[in-house]
């Protein structure tokens, strides 16, 4: 367990002994199980393990990354058949079959993920439902390959030429389960896991900290499918007979239910969920339709009553006991100051140059031929009445929106039309008008996400807890903690962002942006929703940010802060620049008074 500055899970620290005992007890029971149980329960346990693997895989894409698909049964089936055909028809060893299964399921996931980056919710569900049907058709009708509806028989399961007994099968499958769980643990407790959650929570903010949403969605689906593929090949080899019926719509619902019951996006959720969903039918042996009705009812009720599933409930409960007070003692940390984020003043004098920027929505010109120059190391405010086009301008600069015409030059480089995740690496950080924190991550995780572009460890490093990973994670969290200290919120590290006031959330966003070590920080209405004292605090923080050489471009309506801390002000109205200059110049400009107050220009 890498020691982060604050524990990844506060309750684990307080109750760590109990959790360790629980885990060891479970491990022991699983290892000793074959010697205690009869044949029926042994088979039950084996199938349980296989479905836990499926559920873990499914949870990575649907729970962590938020892509609700309905093709899990099809992928499971494709994995089973791919491996069965390899082992039986091609007479290859089991492990080769498993590899083939992973390749096939990976390919199917590509098909699903092809449109996944641009469509959401219902379309993804429909595509995956279509794929479920198509796979069913192929399994039923391509009889030369799959033997059709009659089913497919496999030879007895052997590994390295050894035929496996029932006990051996149990341990082999248990071994794979542990392997997959360790894999998931490594993945989820790395920046990858947090990135998946970020993509699920807020794609715009995810892009804003340097995540290529499309890439991560494809990866999540790929990993997810390959894990399900492994489960499929285990299932085929274990049961020695597979038929298309097994992999239909009801299995998809079963898998969905395990995740809904256990809790989406948690490590132990799939195991708990599968166990419960496997035990329920034991009470309905006489009546399979009643069982399905109970499943359906659970889907309806749990989704609305217990959105986090059982593990979500447990977490909530523990958090209430723990009250988020627990933060590990950091020992002596060197005093922290904004100096750490100082940027040197190399490069052109104007850090940002906007030329002839235009954006049209249909017939409406939101921003027209706007020129803007932001000098390095200054606080530059963009003001103007409601609907003047300020946020559009900022969106064009930060890559969320693409200009119809014109160019944006940052630090001497043309960045027109670049994606937000590219701009982060070049040194542009931003905050949002309506707070965009990742709600399923704690405050400190949110801040640490700002530094995610500085991670260098790869997927393998994440899974095997490489030394590099441990070092980088530790550094990232210490830095995030320091950053929270700078804004005076270190005591909230372990809180959910939703429990903070708007003002505090806005400060956390600034801390996240600071962690990106930017050259230019863009603040979109940082004071909206703040009370007077918070505004005071914020203006002090913005001044300190400027004093270490970070350029600040700010949209703000709160005029006392604009006038108090800006070096330059640009006033826009109707998408056009109507005045520009130093604070003193702009404040007495009659044009500005007119735009704001509708006053007639008297001093001409």
């Amino acid at each position: 367990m890498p020691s982060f500055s604050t524990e990844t899970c506060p309750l684990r620290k307080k109750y760590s002994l109990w959790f360790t005992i629980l885990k060891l007890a479970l491990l022991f029971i699983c290892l000793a199980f074959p010697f205690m149980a009869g044949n029926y329960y042994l088979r039950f346990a084996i199938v349980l393990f296989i479905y836990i693997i499926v559920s873990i895989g499914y949870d990575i894409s649907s729970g962590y990354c938020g892509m609700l698909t309905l093709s899990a049964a099809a992928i499971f089936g494709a994995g089973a058949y791919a491996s069965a055909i390899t082992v039986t028809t091609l007479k290859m060893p089991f492990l080769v079959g498993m590899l083939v299964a992973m390749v096939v399921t990976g390919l199917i996931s590509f098909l699903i993920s092809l449109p996944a980056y641009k469509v959401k919710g219902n379309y993804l569900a429909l595509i995956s439902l279509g794929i479920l049907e198509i796979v069913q058709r192929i399994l039923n009708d391509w009889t030369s390959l799959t033997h059709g509806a009659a089913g497919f028989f496999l030879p007895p399961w052997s590994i390295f030429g050894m035929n496996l007994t029932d006990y051996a099968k149990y341990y082999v499958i248990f071994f794979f389960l542990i392997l997959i769980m360790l894999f998931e643990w490594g993945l989820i407790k790395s920046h990858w896991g947090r990135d998946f959650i970020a993509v699920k929570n807020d794609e715009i903010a995810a892009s804003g900290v340097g995540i290529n949403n499309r890439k991560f969605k494809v990866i999540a689906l790929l990993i997810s499918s390959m894990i399900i593929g492994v489960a499929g090949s285990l299932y085929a080899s274990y049961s020695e007979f597979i038929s298309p019926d097994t992999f239909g719509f009801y299995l998809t619902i079963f898998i969905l239910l395990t995740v809904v019951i256990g809790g989406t996006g948690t490590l132990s959720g799939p195991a708990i969920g599968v166990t419960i969903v496997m035990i329920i039918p034991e009470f309905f042996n006489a009546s399979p339709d009643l069982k399905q009705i109970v499943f359906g009812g659970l889907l309806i009720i749990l989704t609305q009553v217990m959105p986090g599933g059982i593990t979500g409930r447990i977490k909530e409960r523990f958090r209430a006991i723990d009250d988020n007070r627990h933060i590990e003692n950091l020992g002596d940390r060197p005093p922290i100051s904004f100096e750490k984020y100082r940027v040197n003043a190399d490069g052109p004098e104007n850090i940002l140059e906007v030329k002839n920027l235009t954006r049209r929505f249909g017939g409406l010109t939101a921003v027209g031929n706007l020129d803007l120059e932001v000098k390095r190391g200054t606080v530059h405010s963009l003001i103007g009445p409601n609907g003047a086009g300020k946020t559009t301008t900022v969106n064009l600069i930060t890559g969320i929106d693409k200009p119809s015409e014109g160019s944006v030059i940052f630090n001497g480089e043309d960045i027109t039309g670049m994606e937000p995740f590219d701009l982060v690496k070049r040194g542009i950080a931003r905050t949002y008008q309506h707070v965009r924190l990742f709600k399923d991550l704690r405050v400190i995780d949110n801040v640490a996400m700002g530094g995610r572009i500085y991670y260098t460890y790869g997927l393998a490093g994440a899974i095997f807890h490489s030394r590099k990973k441990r070092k980088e994670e530790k550094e990232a969290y210490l830095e995030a903690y320091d950053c929270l200290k700078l804004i005076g919120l270190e005591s909230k590290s372990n809180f959910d962002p939703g429990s903070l006031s708007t003002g505090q959330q806005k400060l956390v966003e600034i801390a996240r942006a600071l962690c990106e070590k930017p050259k230019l920080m863009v603040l979109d209405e940082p004071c909206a929703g703040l009370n007077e004292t918070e505004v005071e605090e914020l203006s002090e923080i913005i001044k300190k940010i400027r004093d270490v050489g970070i350029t600040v471009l700010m949209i703000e309506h709160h005029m006392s802060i604009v006038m108090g801390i800006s070096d330059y002000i640009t006033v826009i109205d109707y998408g056009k620049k109507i005045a520009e200059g130093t604070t003193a110049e702009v404040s007495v400009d009659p044009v500005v008074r007119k735009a704001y107050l509708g006053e007639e220009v008297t001093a001409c």
Partner: protein
Amino acid sequence: MQQLIFGLANGSIYALMALAIGMVSSTTGIVNFAHASVVMMGAMVSWWMMVIYGLSYIPALFVAIAVSIVLNIVMYETCVKKLGDLQDNVGWIITLFGASIILDNIARMLFGTEPQAFPYLFGGKMVTFFGANIMLHELMMITIAVVIGVVYQTIIKKTRFGRAVRAVAFRPATSELMGIKSEKIILSCFAMAGAVAAIGGALIAPITFASYTMTYSIGLKGFAAAVLGGFGNTKGAFIGGFILGLIEAFISIFVPAGIKDSISFVIMIIVIIFLPEGIMSAKFFNRNLSAAEKV
């Protein structure tokens, strides 16, 4: 010719399903994944009324319509209403699948697993038409579907209620300012979709036989048709249904039956991948403001 009528007849069912799916999604933005199960329930209830209580076709159908309307209203109240912002979460996908499973298995418990023969309209009479033998029932399916489609479009375009439906679809909050109760409008849309489902069920049942699995494959094709025409666009969805029916009928001349069934899903996936904007109606597009406007 036979293929043409056959395709149109099948298409009319897809069109009715797509229309009902469109009614719900135009005002709520969701896809009713339980719709196929309501269609099945409609068919089963009218079968039950005819066989057990000896009602004739039309009264039985009315009972089925009433039941389906109630089912859809209950579904809205239990599965959709309490979920909050429907654009922002996918909880409804899960709850609606839950509802679908419950309906399927209730039908299985009540009516058994055996497919039941369902009477044709006009007792399965055939007519000869341009040298092809055509069942009157099939002509009736097409006629009824077209009538429903036209009536619905007229309601939507011309009446006070229709204006309110379009207003809620476009701007729910502003509709409230006009004194329109959006929730009531949404509920009415669910109810109408239920009625259309029952009619569709009773029309298709003679061909597929009445059983709890009768809509497994045609249900998905209803979605495919809705995708083809664009969600929230009832006119497009309706036409999409007929197009899908025709494509299927003509492709089935060249390919075996198993592959024929996959065709519509392949079409659906291709449309989603390559033409999501092309098939999206303006209404749907407006509900999902571009990323820039949401920041």
